[in-house]
């Protein structure tokens, strides 16, 4: 009798543990890039897949770039470089810092926080903007200086007509600034507050319209998929348009989960964004994407993904909103964590890299087979993506260890140079055609 009871309970335990085991591997046959990505069934697992690529040094090596290009470290020992801006005079600005103050709500948040920390730099964020000057374009900056410090997790940068705009994690600020200046003594002027309560996704991306009259700010969601309650999501997962002259703001896109970088497509002057999609629906859901930010568009978050694919986790559901959701333009792959975009301009690098966008992919932490960890090139034609993405800079991941994690990318059309911020090795890489 006792033996039977023990055997029965042992069998139940074994079954329970099997149910609790980890999720499936991803299917390499699925094409998860382009306008119509293959979307598998939702595959929620009890133990979320987490695969941290442990940090390792470059040890004198560099990322891998296409034939005909050379890569070198433009700046090292930065303090968490994120987004960059090339000024009209060729000086390069680098926003450095780390934000976010979301309190752990559940035991999961405590545990996931500890695990994710393993994949990041141990350096404290600089909360500053560093200026680099390489006037003779030899790849070695003659000048490196801190332009402004004591900022609050600066991320998005934009310059227009005597004004340097910085999107901090809680405010958009403006400095009076002329290219050539190497320091800023005047205090920041607050253009507008930005939503910052909780700040689950703290980065505030920024760009300026082609005519210089409008600023665009990308504001990420306050949760993965609404698990902090929808009250926390007011004016989150949106893109704002701010009129420079009046300061008036307007929400131009909603349901756009985490628009981590914004850029203007040069041939059409239209606004584009890279966007990070939701987690925990499986290794191949949901693809992060590149999209033109259409005025008035609703991109589905949190109710649906990739158009009108309903997310079962959101309750109460909202069929009216799902019916309004539009699919984005171009999938970049699931969990690649696209954090940077810049368009080639004035002929780009020529050849197959003349017309298109460079995309910085920070890399996954929540699927078994890592994705991202590279800079991709998306060719454009007539202002629209035209063809599959191409690897432009790789080697950030080697033997399962992360040597670097790309964030912002900046193309300098005058020098014909691509800069890549790497917030793991705290380096800015410079990629240029071989002379």
């Amino acid at each position: 009798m006792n033996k039977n009871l023990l055997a029965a309970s042992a069998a139940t335990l074994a079954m329970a543990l099997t149910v609790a085991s980890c999720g499936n591997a991803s299917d390499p046959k699925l094409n998860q890039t382009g306008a119509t990505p293959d979307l598998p069934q939702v595959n929620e697992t009890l133990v979320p897949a987490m695969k941290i690529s442990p940090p390792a040094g470059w040890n004198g090596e560099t990322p891998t770039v296409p034939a005909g290009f050379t890569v070198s470290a433009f700046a090292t020992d930065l303090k968490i470089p994120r987004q960059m801006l090339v000024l009209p005079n060729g000086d390069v600005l680098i926003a450095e810092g780390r934000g976010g103050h979301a309190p752990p709500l559940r035991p999961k948040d405590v545990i996931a926080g500890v695990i994710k920390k393993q994949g990041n730099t141990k350096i404290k964020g600089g909360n500053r903007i560093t200026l680099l000057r390489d006037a003779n374009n030899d790849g070695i900056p003659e000048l490196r200086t801190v332009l402004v410090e004591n900022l609050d997790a600066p991320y998005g940068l934009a310059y227009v007509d005597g004004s340097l705009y910085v999107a901090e994690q809680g405010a958009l600020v403006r400095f009076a600034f002329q290219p050539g200046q190497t320091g800023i003594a005047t205090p920041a002027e607050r253009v507008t507050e930005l939503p910052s309560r909780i700040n689950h996704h703290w980065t505030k991306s920024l760009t300026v319209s082609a005519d210089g009259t409008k600023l665009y700010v990308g504001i990420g969601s306050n949760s993965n998929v609404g698990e902090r309650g929808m009250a926390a999501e007011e004016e989150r997962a949106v893109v704002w348009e701010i009129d420079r002259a009046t300061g008036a703001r307007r929400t131009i896109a909603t349901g756009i989960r985490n628009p981590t970088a914004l850029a203007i497509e040069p041939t059409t002057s239209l606004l584009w964004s890279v966007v990070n999609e939701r987690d925990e629906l499986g290794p191949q859901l949901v693809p992060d994407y590149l999209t033109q930010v259409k005025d008035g568009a609703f991109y589905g978050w949190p109710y649906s993904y990739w158009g009108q694919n309903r997310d079962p986790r959101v309750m109460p559901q909202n069929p009216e909103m799902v019916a309004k959701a539009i699919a984005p333009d171009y999938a970049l792959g699931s969990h690649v964590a696209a954090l940077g975009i810049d368009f080639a301009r004035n002929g780009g690098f020529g050849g197959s890299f003349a017309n298109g966008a460079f995309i910085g992919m920070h890399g996954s932490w929540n699927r078994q087979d890592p994705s991202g960890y590279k800079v991709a090139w998306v060719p454009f034609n007539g202002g629209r993506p035209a063809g599959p993405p191409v690897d432009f800079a790789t080697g950030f991941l080697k033997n399962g260890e992360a040597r670097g994690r790309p964030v912002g990318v900046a193309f300098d059309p005058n020098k014909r140079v691509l800069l890549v911020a790497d917030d793991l090795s705290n380096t800015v890489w410079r990629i240029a055609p071989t002379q």
Partner: protein
Amino acid sequence: MSTHGLSGAVIRPLHGLLLAFPIALFTFALFTDIAYLRTAEIQWTNFSAWLITGALVFGGLAGVFSIVDFVFGRSRRALIHLVALALAWVLGLVNAFKHSQDAWSSVGAFGVILSILCTILVLVAGWTAYAARESVR
């Protein structure tokens, strides 16, 4: 102090106190799960996640005493108690992972079924343990 005296003065009360936690916490997690499913108010499932975690911590400690009890006592009651507590603990662990999923998936039908099973099992475990205590006297 004799072994029997130590057992009566320290071990048994400690076992009983520790066991009280999973009994209360698993049961309350069932209530907060039901509250979440009825209201979709996120804070209820956050409560559930912490209640289940607390039940696992204290239930695990109580389980050590239960194992010792069974090994030394070899009584059928101690076995039923141990099996019920162990099952509650393992299903509670599965439920903790279930509750780590986001929004509605943190509970859903599977989560509340697990909470019901954990509550029943931990009540059985408590019942047998406290009944055994009375019979020892």
